[in-house]
């Protein structure tokens, strides 16, 4: 039964079963029967959860460098991480974005450490022995548990010189970099506050830069956790815009994502869309319209490519209750019902599509209205957040799709429903094919636009479509109505094909230019045509026009998107005219640098196609010489001066593109290789203000690009003696560069990365014996992450090319054991992109053991990391497809019948069709890991508190995060002092390896049993259970009696001076005080009895032992 269909159904069901959004939890609290009467009286029950977290595998990530010294000296730190709502990995909470409460957080850490968390740092107090400090945080803005985060380490502190309420943290020794990196942040703040006409919602903001970050940037309430690798000095050019982008992204998410949270998973697109959209506005302002449009184009191309490949990204999935049949994403190998079942790539594309759709909405209702809508959402939320005691108002801080759309229609008065229906409620993109003919008699342009809406990932588009036609007399916009059956559109032309030689030609932007019109068709006034120039449809356009039209478009159209499109189109027209157009663009300094960079590669391709007729020196060589070499000695490059970034980028790119040139023998021309080697030789950065590490890295890339497959005679073994002399030169350079890196490392080791890639290219082309040993040493833990990724990529490639089972095992082993979550994720990702084999492919690697291994990884090896699990699923899908892997032995049908009839032990080789297709919730023990992975022990009880109550029953809930998924549950700790608590939920599941432990009689029975339990979680049927569901599932279900819930995280002093045992392993101790309370609004008496429900002040006097994470 190792098929993915089955897995993803079961997985989705398991995630559903513990989905906090749906009111399900992983920690069930059973109200003792003695307390039922209090519940009936609608009294407040206070729940206190003590727990410790011992060596968590997920949720918190510890980085402890293995050097001498104290933890602080070693730079050891810890931070919370995860994908979507993953806070429950490190403390018990209602881990839903829609459950808001205010927080009081306390962290006791070593005196040399700083604990950074959400909200305001109220005070820092030493412990009695003065060895530790307690950081007291107060977050008075209602916030979902999922937006709570933590970072502890010996951070260096930098108060932002422009905004004193903003504090930056970095690891020791990096302060100068931090200063430079964050020096720009205040401008981002100003920008967002200005466009949103709204102050930043939190009273403070913190940025923390940590090592081994889970993602480059993670936004939480009033703080963001970044990767330390984003830090850079003033000498680094390439990283600067990237880092600033991440900072801006993080800040956009502070407004939409942290402050305004989402109602449910299906509303996620609104938040991602808005934050991505305002981030785009920031990009436009900061980097200019060209960069912005280029980015939009790139994002659009990406989403189009992905949707066409996989079959669609759905922004707003609507799940009809029970109607499982019309699964909105049946084309995918995972369920999109939950964030935690999504493939990471899908989620990335989801975010990309969300902001593009937001841009479409802006196109429809204007930016002004758009910003008004955002402002409205924000001001409503901030009004609600200040209502301390009316938590029902807090729902204003949650955004839902319907609420958002309503705001739009209120503010703009426009109906955007069709747009929403097309792009949000429906997946797929539009694929246009356009061609045209000019009817000279009627002076009409006959445009034919076809659509492909049958391929996967496509949809039919009906509605307006803008077409821009550049004629001799000017540029004209036409809006066509795309309808069901109309393919042809007649567009009247304004100008006759006559030539008025002296006349300048007006462009779209009002500019008038002289053109050499000799190339164009004498009968037609058309210069070029563009379909949907503003990218107001999520589409792919394949348009046919003559080569000279593309050339005119490239030369004279001022929109960078049009220029890029024409460059790509010109690849198909290898003519001298194309060559000239591209060369002209390359030389034109006013032209956007990315267009020029793209033109380099196109020129290389054209040159290769024209190789037999090419005249003159290799493409770009004379251009490069003119631009970057000395006047007196053209073979020597000028000493580096990167003050002009545009020419810097061009200088970097040209050699890389040139190296792709090939001569008639399909070899890189000797001249080009010598040229590149000279560039390396004469490179001189002494007078430069900027580092040349990226430039040198690209020169190595250029060397790698010049490598062509070795001519092999009789499969001789590759040795030094028969090494090609050119390759010898290349190897010399690589060796020297790689060795120099050891002595003078470059920023982010860009040069090592390029060298490793180049070595792999040499191996692959048969110049150097193929051997993964070198890469494996560089892939080890302890190297910089970029190096590791490059080395791992080489190993992945080796695995594929050489079909090495050993290396595949090595990689999979690393997936399971590497300390860095990002690396583990990345290996799976790279294996998926460059798989050693795919389904329907014969490969010695495809065997049963591998299936088992991956299956196990999906089921039980990755319980602590959603992203990793989904990565494993992706890989499984790539390797084996949706159905049963072909390498497994064929199931014997008889066995199935036997299974069903007898009470035999389940033999999970196959799955009956019915089970696979019907989407019954989790029905096989194989897949229950998710359900129980985080709830290994649940002994919970409610404690009633009265006003005079002093003793609070408490007990520890021990969570073992490192417990593998699917292993049987352990009975919980025995409650310490209270007899009235009950260990209630003890589900015993086992994974496929331990089937004999299932104490079910038949398969059916077991399914029923599980189903029952799941149901029990969802819909408690007995009074007792109802209480537990009230406590556990604090989501306000409409039918549920509690309409108001206020939760406060109160802290109180310890009644007992409990000495926390110092934990050797982590050295950090966190006391997390966190308490949820439920108040029934209608009972006024209760209010009086429970005064502290109103106040945010600590419920002093209450003896509440805080849970300690690492006791």
């Amino acid at each position, binding site marked *: 039964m190792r098929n993915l269909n089955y897995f993803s159904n079961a997985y989705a069901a398991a995630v559903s079963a513990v989905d906090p959004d749906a009111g399900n939890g992983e920690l069930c609290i059973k109200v003792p029967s003695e307390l039922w009467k209090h519940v009936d009286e609608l009294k407040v029950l206070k729940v206190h959860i003590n727990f410790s977290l011992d060596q968590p595998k997920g949720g918190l990530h510890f980085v402890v*460098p293995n*050097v001498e*010294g*104290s933890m*602080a*000296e070693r730079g050891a730190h810890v931070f919370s991480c995860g994908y979507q709502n993953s806070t429950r990995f490190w403390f018990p909470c209602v881990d839903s974005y829609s459950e808001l409460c205010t927080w009081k957080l306390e962290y006791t850490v070593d005196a*040399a450490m*700083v604990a950074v968390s959400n909200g305001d*740092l109220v*005070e*820092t*107090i*030493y412990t*009695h022995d003065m060895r530790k*400090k307690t950081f007291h945080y107060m977050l008075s803005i209602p916030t979902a548990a999922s937006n709570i985060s933590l970072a502890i380490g010996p951070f*260096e*502190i930098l108060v932002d*010189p422009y905004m*004193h*309420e903003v*504090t930056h943290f970095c690891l*020791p020794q*990096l*302060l*100068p*970099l931090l*200063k430079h990196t964050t020096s720009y942040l205040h401008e981002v703040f100003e920008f967002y506050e200005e466009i949103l006409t709204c102050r930043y919602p939190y009273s403070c903001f913190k940025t923390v830069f940590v*090592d081994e970050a889970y993602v480059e940037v993670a936004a939480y309430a009033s703080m963001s956790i970044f990767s*330390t*690798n984003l*830090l850079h000095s003033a000498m680094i050019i390439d990283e600067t815009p990237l880092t600033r982008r991440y900072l801006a992204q993080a800040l956009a998410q502070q407004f939409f994502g942290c402050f305004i949270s989402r109602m449910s998973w299906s509303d996620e697109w609104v938040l991602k869309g808005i934050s991505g959209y305002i981030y785009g506005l920031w990009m436009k302002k900061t980097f200019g319209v060209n960069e912005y449009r280029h980015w939009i184009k790139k994002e659009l191309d990406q989403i189009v490519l992905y949707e066409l490949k996989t079959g669609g990204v759905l922004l707003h999935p609507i799940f009809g209750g029970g109607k499982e049949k019309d699964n909105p994403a049946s084309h995918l190998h995972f369920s999109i019902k939950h964030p935690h079942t999504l493939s990471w790539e899908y989620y990335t594309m989801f975010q990309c599509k969300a902001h593009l759709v937001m841009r479409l909405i802006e196109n429809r209702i204007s930016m002004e209205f758009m910003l008004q809508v955002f402002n409205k959402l924000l001001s409503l939320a901030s009004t609600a957040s200040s209502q301390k005691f009316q938590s029902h108002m807090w729902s204003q801080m949650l955004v839902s799709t319907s609420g958002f759309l309503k705001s739009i229609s209120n503010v703009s008065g426009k109906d955007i429903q069709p747009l929403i229906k097309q792009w949000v409620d429906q997946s797929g993109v539009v694929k246009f094919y356009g061609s045209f003919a000019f009817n000279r008699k009627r002076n009409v342009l006959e445009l034919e636009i076809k659509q492909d809406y049958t391929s996967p990932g496509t949809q039919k588009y009906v509605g307006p479509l803008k077409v821009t036609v550049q004629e001799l007399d000017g540029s004209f916009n036409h809006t066509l109505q795309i309808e069901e059956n109309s393919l042809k559109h007649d567009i009247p032309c304004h100008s006759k094909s006559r030539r008025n030689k002296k006349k300048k030609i007006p462009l779209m932007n009002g500019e008038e230019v002289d053109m050499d019109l000799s190339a164009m068709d004498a009968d037609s006034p058309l210069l070029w045509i563009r379909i949907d120039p503003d990218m107001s449809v999520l589409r792919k356009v394949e348009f046919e026009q003559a080569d000279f039209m593309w050339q005119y478009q490239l030369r004279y159209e001022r929109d960078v998107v049009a220029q890029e499109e024409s460059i790509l189109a010109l690849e198909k027209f290898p003519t001298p005219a194309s060559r000239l157009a591209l060369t002209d663009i390359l030389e034109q300094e006013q032209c956007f640098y990315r267009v020029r960079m793209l033109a380099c590669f196109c020129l290389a391709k054209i040159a290769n196609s024209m190789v037999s007729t090419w005249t003159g020196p290799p493409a770009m060589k004379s251009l490069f010489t003119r631009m970057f070499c*000395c006047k007196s*000695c053209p073979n*020597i490059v000028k000493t580096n001066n990167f003050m002009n970034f545009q020419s810097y980028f061009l200088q970097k790119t040209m050699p890389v593109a040139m190296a792709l040139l090939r001569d008639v023998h399909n070899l890189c021309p000797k001249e080009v290789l010598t040229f590149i080697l000279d560039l390396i030789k004469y490179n001189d950065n002494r007078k430069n*203000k900027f580092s040349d590490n990226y430039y040198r890295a690209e020169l190595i890339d250029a060397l790698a690009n010049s490598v062509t497959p070795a001519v092999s005679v009789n499969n001789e073994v590759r*040795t*030094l003696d028969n090494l090609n002399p050119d390759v010898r030169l290349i*190897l*010399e350079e690589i*060796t020297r560069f*790689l*060795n*120099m890196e*050891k*002595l003078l*490392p470059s*920023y*982010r*080791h860009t040069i090592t990365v390029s060298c490793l890639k180049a070595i792999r290219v*040499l191996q692959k082309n048969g110049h*150097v*014996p193929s*051997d993964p040993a*070198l890469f494996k*040493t560089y892939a080890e*833990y*302890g*190297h*910089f992450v*970029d190096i590791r990724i490059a080395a791992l990529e080489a190993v992945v490639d080796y695995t594929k090319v050489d079909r090495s089972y050993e290396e595949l095992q090595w990689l999979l082993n690393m997936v399971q054991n590497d300390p860095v979550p990002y690396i583990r994720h990345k290996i799976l990702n790279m294996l998926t992109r460059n798989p050693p084999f795919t389904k329907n492919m014969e490969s010695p690697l495809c065997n049963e053991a591998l299936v088992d291994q991956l299956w196990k990884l999906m089921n039980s090896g990755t319980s602590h990391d959603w992203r990793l699990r989904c990565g494993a699923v992706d890989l499984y899908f790539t390797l084996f497809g949706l159905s049963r892997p072909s390498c497994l032995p064929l199931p014997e049908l008889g066995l199935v019948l036997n299974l069903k009839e007898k009470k035999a032990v389940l033999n999970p080789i196959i799955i009956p069709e019915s089970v696979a297709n019907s989407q019954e919730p989790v029905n096989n023990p194989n897949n229950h890991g998710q359900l129980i992975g985080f709830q290994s022990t649940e002994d919970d009880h409610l404690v009633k508190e009265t006003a005079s109550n002093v003793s609070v029953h408490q007990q520890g809930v021990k969570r073992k995060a490192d417990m593998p998924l699917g292993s049987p549950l352990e009975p919980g700790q025995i409650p310490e002092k209270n007899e009235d608590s009950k260990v209630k939920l003890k589900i015993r599941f086992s994974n496929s390896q331990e089937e004999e432990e299932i104490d079910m009689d038949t398969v059916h029975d077991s399914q029923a049993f599980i189903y029952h339990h799941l149901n029990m979680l969802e819909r408690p049927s007995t009074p007792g259970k109802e209480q537990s569901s009230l406590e556990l599932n604090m989501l306000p279900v409409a039918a549920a009696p509690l309409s108001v819930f206020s939760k406060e995280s109160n802290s109180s002093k310890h009644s007992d001076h409990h000495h926390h045992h110092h934990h050797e392993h982590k050295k950090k101790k966190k006391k997390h005080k966190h308490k949820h309370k439920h108040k029934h609004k209608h009972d006024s008496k209760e209010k009086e009895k429970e005064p502290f429900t109103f106040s945010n002040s600590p419920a002093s006097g209450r003896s509440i032992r805080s849970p300690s994470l690492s006791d």
Partner: protein
Amino acid sequence: MADTVSSGSGTRSGGKHSTTPADNYYLARRRTLQVVVSSLLTEAGFESAEKAAVETLTEMLQSYVSEIGRSAKSYCEHTARTQPTLSDIVVTLVEMGFNVETLPAYAKRSQRMVITAPPVTNQPVTPKALTAGQNKPHPSHIPGHFPEFPDPHTYIKTPTYREPVSDYQILREKAASQRRDVERALTRFMAKTGETQSLFKDDVSTFPLIAARPFTIPYLTALLPSELEMQQMEETDSSEQDDQTDTENLPLHMSTDDSGAEKENASVLQQNASLSGSRNGEESLIDNPYLRPVKKPKIRRKK
């Protein structure tokens, strides 16, 4: 007196078998001194003296005279001369505590004995260093007492003229190949002295790669600019960054100072940070909770 003389000659004859011309020279002078001492003793009324006593007195006299000579030489050199003059001797004697006034009277005393000058023996010849060329004679304006010119090879230079290298191309070429050679030599050396990896199984020396070694804190080497780059940045920045320093305001400078201290001792980072906070707070009124001092724990009363 005769005894002493005979004994003195006896000493000489005793050591005769192994004398060199230089020894002879010194012995002759010493013998004269002995004669002087003996005559002085006679003058003072001694009939005879023990050999050892005479030797001691000779020794003392010799040291005294040597010291006078040495000091006198110093004085004369001090005044940039080569030959001591009478005044040098006088100053020396004064310096040594000798009453110079009494000297003429003493010299003219009646009973003084006249001793024959020591026999002229040849000045020992110091073996000449290899001479190259002829020493230059003093030009007319230099007094003859000045030392001779040293051997010509010590100061004569023979310039080897070449065209000054001003061609840009060659300069660049040279700089490039020089750097490349240095880099190659250095990396080869490193590779030879440490562990290496190789791309070819059968050959480890042609393209030796220094073995990859994991770092304990990899991000530090990856992110921090190398010293070379820092230096370079300082050089290139000095001109351009002037305008920037104006915009960077005071608190930034403050934290620059702190960073050094924090680096030195990470364990007291916290204290530093809080200290710097209070300093910052005073000087620029930044109120940031992370800069506030850490509070002392409250003492709790037991109920």
